[in-house]
């Protein structure tokens, strides 16, 4: 708030998405990449036949979390665009899988990260992409907002 106002701002330098709240997002996305990835790896390796659809979706979710983590950390314009795509897929995924797991419970004999709208993970999988999109889009809309 008390930052220097006279920033020249010639070429719109790419704003950092990997500091402030962005660093918290990197942390939470990293944790989800780790937990979803490890879980999917164990499930696919030991009992893939039990719930192939659920385990494949878990692996897909893990991959998206991992890409989002790396994109947020890299903080280049291209990685920001890719992160927006990841968050969008995530939001659509958690809503679609959440609805599907309630409508067709038989297809999901075992839980995925996104089952029941992420209930097993405290609904964080549902809230996380919303915060992510807000952060990424806010940064591109508001020009010289000094980070808090």
């Amino acid at each position, binding site marked *: 708030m008390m930052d220097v106002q006279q920033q020249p701002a010639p070429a719109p330098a790419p704003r950092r998405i990997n*500091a*402030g*709240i962005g*660093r*918290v997002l*990197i*942390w*939470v996305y*990293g*944790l989800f990449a*780790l*937990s979803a990835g*490890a*879980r999917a790896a*164990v499930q696919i*390796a*030991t009992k893939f036949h039990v719930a192939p659809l659920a385990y494949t979706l878990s692996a897909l979710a893990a991959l998206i979390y991992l890409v989002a983590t790396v994109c947020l950390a890299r903080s280049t314009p291209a990685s920001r665009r890719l992160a927006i795509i990841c968050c969008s897929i995530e939001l659509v995924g958690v809503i679609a899988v959440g609805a599907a797991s309630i409508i067709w419970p038989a297809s999901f004999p075992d839980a995925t990260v996104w089952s029941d709208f992420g209930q097993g993970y405290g609904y964080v999988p549902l809230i996380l992409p919303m915060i992510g999109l807000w952060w990424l889009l806010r940064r591109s809309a508001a020009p010289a907002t000094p980070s*808090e």
Partner: protein
Amino acid sequence: MVCAVPEFLRIATAVVALLLAAWAIYLVIRSRPPRPALFAGVAVLELLAVALVITALVRLADGHKAPDPATFIGYVAAFLVVPPAGFALARMEPTKWGSAIIAVLGIVEAILVVRLQQVWTGV
């Protein structure tokens, strides 16, 4: 009812993790960066986690069968990695968001204590 580790060690780890989280949330509300003592708390948490894991591994060597060994090892790895990873990330963020990182760390570690015990007994 086989316990992975002495109950007091599990309770101590969970309590330290939750106290850290509560303190970190307080700092976030006050818009304060993490204090040195908060980082020291994370170090204490990691020491407790290491002690807990060593005890569990000793009992595994003694012949306890975890129902799902692969999952158990996964949780053990996450349990040991989370405090130092969050510590490093929070050090890079000397703002209230650094405190937020520690808050997440404490909550996740407390959940992992519970999950470790569940995976150990196969509940």
